[in-house]
């Protein structure tokens, strides 16, 4: 079964939705994403965990003149990210099905296109193809946020798009330079990642290209100090869009470090290791502090995500297999946790007269035990309570960093403590405390429950069995980190 099917199925369902009557569009696209999810589960089930390297490789020449291949493949690095993407898009589309949208055909078409682009970015095994999908992701989000967002949507969208595209253009320049300079020794021009990894670029070249890629990825995540688009963007996005944006798009960037940067630019990765670790720590501390001071639930989650992504970058740039393993697990965890949290925010806002400010909430748990329970589970998972897979992930990350940079690891550990402070603050302020003026306590409706509860069950399942992704990703992680680790020695 070719991987192209997995990528393009959502987009095709989106096209079908455009051609059918408007009231069918939500269902059609939802069905497309559910089938994609089933396919993804099929891939995970039949993944050969013993084999090294890519599986189900599709390798077609796309643009022969530029050496660009349409090469896709699954390995331990992207296997679970693909599964989580399919799962979360299905969940978000289910959530989007709960309400009416203006111009539904275009909305759901764009949503489906976004899923295709994200899956493409995860599966691409050619640098130019990766860049193309990475940029393409932004187009549907531009429309989704700009046309269906709230408040100052146009300004927020423009800001978001310009921030991320500026990063992407630097990445484009870096990618072209990688291919062209690698071919200068007389080799044929190619952008296939496995071929590029064979060529060792000069260290100076690696360094500027590394900075190009790092900028693109850090903006996309976003990490302090290039997060300027984040507060406005998070406020403006429609909720299901925000959920997948926060959960999945940031992971594409983190995944890019593991897939592209570490194997292709190992010398530069070692050279800039401390810089990246410091940025990560800054993001953890800044994100935690900001999450603690915000009152808008979206921004609390946004800044908490920044702190979590700080941990992920920390794990990657420990340049140790343990750290990268933890980072990968944490990517899956965070994506799985943040989507139900955003859905809970939506549910809370519906009970607080539309406000997403925690000062307007309070006492929500009184007559809604299921809502309170799901929120509590997701919040505890997010703050990495022992027993949850997030704890395992952060543990691995810190283990990796302790081995390489002790001082940074100690500072970063405080982030774990801060996480419990801001998550519990948000939980107590909304669910307990005195009831807000407009807040009413109401149990989850059936629709909300269907969207939220399965995800929370997934979080719990992963807590019981974190070995599921870890065992399958081990070999690929080792391969990704190996070169950089060798340089460091």
């Amino acid at each position: 079964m070719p991987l192209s099917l997995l990528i393009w199925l959502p987009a095709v369902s989106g096209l079908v939705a455009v051609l059918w009557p408007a009231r069918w569009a939500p269902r059609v696209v939802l069905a497309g994403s559910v089938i994609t999810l089933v396919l993804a589960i099929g891939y995970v089930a039949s993944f050969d965990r013993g084999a090294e390297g890519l599986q189900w490789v599709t390798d077609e020449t796309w643009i022969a003149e530029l050496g660009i291949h349409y090469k896709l493949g699954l390995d331990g690095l992207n296997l679970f990210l693909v599964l989580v993407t399919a799962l979360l898009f299905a969940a978000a589309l289910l959530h989007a099905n709960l309400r009416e949208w203006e111009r539904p055909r275009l909305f759901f078409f764009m949503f489906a296109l976004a899923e295709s682009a994200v899956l493409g970015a995860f599966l691409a095994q050619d640098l130019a193809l990766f860049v193309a999908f990475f940029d393409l992701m932004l187009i549907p989000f531009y429309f989704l946020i700009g046309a269906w967002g709230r408040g100052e949507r146009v300004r927020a969208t423009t800001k978001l798009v310009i921030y991320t595209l500026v990063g992407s253009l630097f990445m484009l320049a870096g990618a072209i330079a990688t291919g062209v300079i690698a071919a200068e020794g007389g080799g044929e021009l190619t952008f296939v990642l496995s071929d590029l990894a064979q060529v060792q670029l000069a260290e100076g070249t690696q360094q500027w290209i590394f900075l190009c890629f790092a900028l693109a990825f850090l903006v996309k995540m976003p990490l302090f100090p290039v997060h300027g688009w984040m507060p406005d963007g998070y406020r403006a996005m429609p909720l299901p869009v925000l959920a997948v944006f926060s959960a999945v798009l940031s992971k594409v960037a983190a995944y890019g470090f593991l897939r592209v940067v570490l194997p292709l630019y190992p010398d530069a990765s070692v050279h800039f290791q401390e810089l990246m670790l410091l940025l990560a720590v800054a993001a953890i501390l800044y994100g935690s502090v900001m999450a603690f001071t915000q009152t808008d639930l979206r921004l609390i989650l946004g800044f908490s995500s920044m702190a979590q992504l700080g941990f992920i970058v920390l794990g990657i740039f420990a340049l140790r297999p343990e750290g990268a393993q933890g980072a990968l697990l944490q990517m899956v965890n965070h994506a799985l946790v943040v989507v139900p949290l955003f859905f809970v925010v939506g549910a809370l806002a519906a009970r607080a007269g539309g406000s997403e400010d925690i000062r307007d909430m309070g006492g929500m748990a009184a007559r809604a035990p299921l809502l309170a329970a799901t929120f509590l589970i997701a919040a505890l998972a997010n703050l990495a309570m022992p027993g949850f897979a997030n704890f395992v992930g952060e543990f691995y990350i810190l283990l990796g960093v302790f081995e390489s940079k002790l001082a940074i690891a100690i500072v970063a550990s405080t982030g774990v403590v801060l996480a419990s402070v801001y998550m519990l603050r948000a939980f107590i302020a909304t669910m307990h405390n005195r009831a807000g003026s407009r807040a009413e306590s109401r149990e989850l409706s059936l629709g909300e429950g269907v969207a939220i509860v399965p995800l929370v069950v997934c979080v719990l399942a992963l807590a019981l069995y974190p070995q599921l992704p870890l065992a399958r990703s081990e070999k690929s992680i080792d391969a990704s980190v190996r070169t950089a680790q060798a340089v460091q020695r």
Partner: protein
Amino acid sequence: MTPEAPHIDWAGLSPIVALTAGGIVVLAAGLFRGAWLRRYGVPLLTLLTLGATAGLSIWQWGEDKAIVSRALAVDDLAMFLNLLFCAGAIAAVVLALRDSSPEESGHGEWHALLISSVLGMTVLASAQNLVVVFLGFELLSIPLYVMCATNLRRSKSLESGLKYLIVGSVGSATLLYGLAMIYGATGATGFEQIATALSSQAGLIDDPLTLTGIGLIVVGFCFKVSAAPFHQWTPDVYEGAPTPVTAFMAVATKAAAFGAFVRLFDVALIDAATNWSPLLAAVAVASIVVGNVGALTQTSLKRLLAWSSIAQAGYMLAAVVVADREGVEALAFYLAVYLVMNLAAFAVIVARERETPFGDDIRSLAGLGASRPALAWPMTLAMLSLAGIPATAGFIGKFTLIGATVDGGYTWLGVAIVVGSMLSLYYYLRVVAAMWLSDVPVPAAREPVPAIAGGSPELDAAADPEDGAGQDAGPDRPVSQAEATAVAVLFGAATLFFGILPSPLFDLARDAGSALGLL
């Protein structure tokens, strides 16, 4: 004893012959009295001429010869550019079908001028001689000066015609003076002889005459391709000219001028490259910066595209600076891409000019995504492509341009292209935002069209609102713009197609790129 007649390669000359004959026929056909013949027969004949020229150019594909005493080259670069000119002119004819400018100036004349401008471009694209360069430039420009002014009722159109004439002539005169200097320095007008002279005679490269000549030629070319700092005329002329003319001018003139640019600099003056490449590189960077900054605040779409064309000229100049086969290939590819995406955008502007009372203001696009998706999608694709977003032809085009600059050792020029693209995101996305993210504005009152002193009653009748043409058509009287929509959809689809499957275009561009015999 009769002197032996020189051998004439009719096959090689055939595109030029077809254009000349077609121009005369069209001009004559415009004299007939039948309104139907004038309004539909003349454009049809024009389309036939252009189609024949394109067909003959395809027929001559793969030839590599020099004709007319080695003054004209028949090679793949010239034929590739011929196809671009014909595509641009065909689009202009279709867009002008219901435009007021051929109506006011006479259909026969308008179309004959268009054909002679294409003829000038064809000559210029295959020029192998300084004299032919000048002749081609003038044959291309002089009809365009008139065409800019063909909207006789709009003072803006006349004004743009005069401005273009003055600025264009200054450019031509400067270019000519530079060509004279090169002739003076090398004693030759043929490109091959100039190249031989420059490479064989020591010290000639740094001769003051050569240097002055190169400097003046660069200035002249900058006027023609609208590169900074000689770009000021571009926004005014683009805005004032009738939109179909602007569309043709924007895409075809640029292709022709760049065709001559690479031939002159990368063939004749290649040995002096150390002298001109820093100059051209500086001009390229200046154009990228000036064009992109200038476009940021524009509200008129035609002015916006004019500033963007200045920036795009900068990107393409970077490929000339590289001066190798890959550079020419990237340039040829980008010229084609540039044509496709700009024509899509201009077709939408033409349609909206006639449908709304806002002219070419950005407000004319408001809410287009909901009301006219068939126009909104091509415009969106064109803007995304101009900005260089993946899955559009512009992305692949920029990819090849940056690749060529990096490979040619001008990484910093590649970075300049990237930085320019970043600036450009702002204004291209503003257009997209207007279409998809904003609401429909309230139309303002229409301005009456003043009469011409000494104008004929016939002309006045032609401009009557009942005609359905011209910028008088308000939203209260919806006019179906089927042909403009078709052009927009066609070129929008091409933008997408070449973004996903660029290989066919690459094959053509590669043939064109290897025509100059560069490494």
